């Protein structure tokens, strides 16, 4: 009798997440092609249009990368928190809170220097995200309350707060009662690097390097890993595990808040319930399939941005929205399966011995 077991590979190729995403993409395209053929569509035409409109020109590449910015920033935040083996399901709420904090500062401040103001606004959005996770962090370190539940529940609170603000105190008089806050002034829009790519992408890249350094190279990152790994080892090493977890949560929440701030200043230009299109949840997927590695998050997040843009143009070829969703979902599913085989191996165990 032989038994088969799953075993985690000891050495994981750093590029594996990227490859797995490409393999998943191929699986998705394969299955998608079959579905398209059954719908009487030409898969080559559909996928070449997707490619052309998501990465085919400077304009489309910059649109795709803009879409990736909130995913990457929130994903980095999730990855920092995960280095102490905690999960942040609340990035969606933290993104909104980042936008809310930013707008609060904006409407209560006189602007003297727009550039300096942008810096202040983005720092405020970071603080907003951190404040949003403060309560779950305190509940975690003081009472051991499960952070998965508290961070998730905070999403509903913050989205409720957003709905209140855009229907009440912040409602734009010019929008004829449509629930959205007044636009911020053009002087604080994030400038663009090239095409439509906002400076948010530079911020994103710097954060990726920063988070990589913090997690992999710094003493703090080492302490985080020990704290998350074993409570006893942490005590032995003289590390205050609760304090480290607390700080990691605040930084992670702050990065998601920054994602909201960048999105507001570069894309939506105002607070509304459309500030995040589920970025906080997609960021969890991005972080998870890359095994929480910062550069993996950066790469896969960028591909995800392109996939999102590609997905939303499939319909323009006459493919129904339901089929478009299926194609996006199969791609993602393919990537998850490929990632699984890069991370685990199947070993045969003989029971005869």
């Amino acid at each position, binding site marked *: 009798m032989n038994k088969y077991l799953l075993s985690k590979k000891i050495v994981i190729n750093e590029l594996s997440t990227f490859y797995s995403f490409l393999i998943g993409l191929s699986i998705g395209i394969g299955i998608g092609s079959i579905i398209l053929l059954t719908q009487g569509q030409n898969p080559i035409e559909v996928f070449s*249009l997707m490619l*052309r*409109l998501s990465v085919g020109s400077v*304009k489309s590449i910059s*649109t795709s990368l*803009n*879409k990736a910015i909130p995913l990457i920033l929130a994903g980095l935040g999730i990855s920092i928190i995960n280095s102490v083996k905690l999960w942040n399901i609340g990035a969606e709420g933290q993104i909104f809170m980042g936008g809310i904090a930013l707008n609060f500062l904006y409407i209560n401040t006189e602007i003297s220097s727009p550039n300096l103001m942008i810096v202040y606004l983005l720092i405020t959005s970071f603080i907003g995200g951190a404040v949003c996770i403060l309560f779950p962090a305190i509940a975690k370190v003081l009472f051991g309350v499960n952070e998965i539940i508290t961070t998730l529940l905070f999403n509903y609170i913050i989205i409720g707060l957003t*709905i209140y603000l855009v*229907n*009440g105190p912040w409602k734009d008089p010019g929008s*004829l*009662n*449509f*629930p959205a806050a007044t636009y911020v002034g053009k002087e604080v829009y994030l400038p663009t690097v090239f095409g439509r790519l906002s400076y948010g992408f530079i911020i994103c890249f710097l954060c990726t390097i920063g988070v990589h350094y913090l997690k992999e190279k710094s003493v703090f990152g080492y302490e985080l890993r020990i704290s998350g790994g074993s409570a006893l080892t942490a005590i032995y090493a003289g590390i205050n595990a609760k304090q480290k977890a607390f700080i990691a949560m605040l930084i992670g929440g702050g990065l998601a808040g920054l994602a909201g701030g960048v999105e507001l200043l570069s*894309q*939506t230009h105002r607070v509304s*319930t*459309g500030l995040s*299109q589920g970025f906080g949840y997609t960021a969890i997927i991005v972080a998870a399939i890359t095994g929480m590695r910062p550069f993996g998050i950066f790469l896969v997040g960028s591909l995800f941005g392109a996939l999102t*843009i590609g997905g*939303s*143009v499939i*319909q*323009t*070829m*006459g493919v*129904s*929205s339901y089929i478009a969703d299926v194609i996006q979902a199969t791609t993602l599913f393919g990537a998850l399966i490929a990632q699984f085989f890069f991370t685990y191996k199947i070993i045969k165990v003989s029971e005869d011995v």
Partner: protein
Amino acid sequence: MRRRWAVGLILISILTMACGGAASVDEYKAAFVYVGPADDGGWSQAHDVGRQYLVEQTGIQTEYTALVPEDATEFRTVAEAYIEQGYNIIFGTTFGYIDAMAEMAEEYPDVIFLHCSGYLNNDTNFANYFGKMYQPRYLSGLAAGAMTDSNKIGYVAAFPIPEVIRGINAFAAGVNEVNPDATVEVVWTFTWFGPEAETQAANALLETGADVLAQHQDSAATGLAAEAAGAKWISYNTAYGQDSAPEAFVTAPVWDWGPYYVDIVESIIDGTFTTESYWGGMETGLVSLYDLSSDVPSETATLIAEKTEAIINGTLEVAIVEEEFISNVIGTVNP
């Protein structure tokens, strides 16, 4: 069916021959962008039926994209994909696309942007269009007022914007005319198409004693809730809801976009297009009240028929009130 096609083809060929040197329909491709599914049984489907009519009548090539959120980047991504493929007429059929369409009209002067339910336009390539839906809503209020026993009518409504508020007031004016004791209670859902939120709001109204429900929503969720509770339902947009809630269905103020879409596209082709706001009333057929169910008392049906006639020939003007609710409405315009 085939015969209809043949007749259509002959008509088109006659038309194209008659036009002679003018631009032909082949030079245009029209794209429609919807906020909900194209088969939502309501708002977006009403537009899609209009699109299909447009194709039948003019032979123009069209395409649509459904479920595009009211977000500038989302709309822009889809619209640019169409422009890239040579589409030069873009219909956006929900209020929230307004800013994106205004911006894109400046950026793409060769593309014509047509926005439904908004208030912005420019002098060249960006027009807005809508219908006087408050007229048939007033008529449906007459039916609702006659149908309620509890004197409590519920109204599931999307956003407190002028379009929705004037609809509620017109409806409530109709209610008041036949039943001064009845009140209309409004619950806001903050979504055009959100079956869960719509169901929740409908049930909340039913639980507090409403026995007739009306709606300004895109799905038939309110109707299903009314059907389950044995209440009556005034639908909206289309009459498809009568299949899913046959007992509850009373009537529906409905859209017929087809003829307008044909007119506007033909005006673009023959060069007479202007960006003036279009606001069609019942006399154009764009808006109307669907056939009443047999539950409606015959004297009410007669009254509605008279009022319909009066609106169409212009002797009756339904009041437009959109700053606040009239006195028999319970709720707030500033939630």
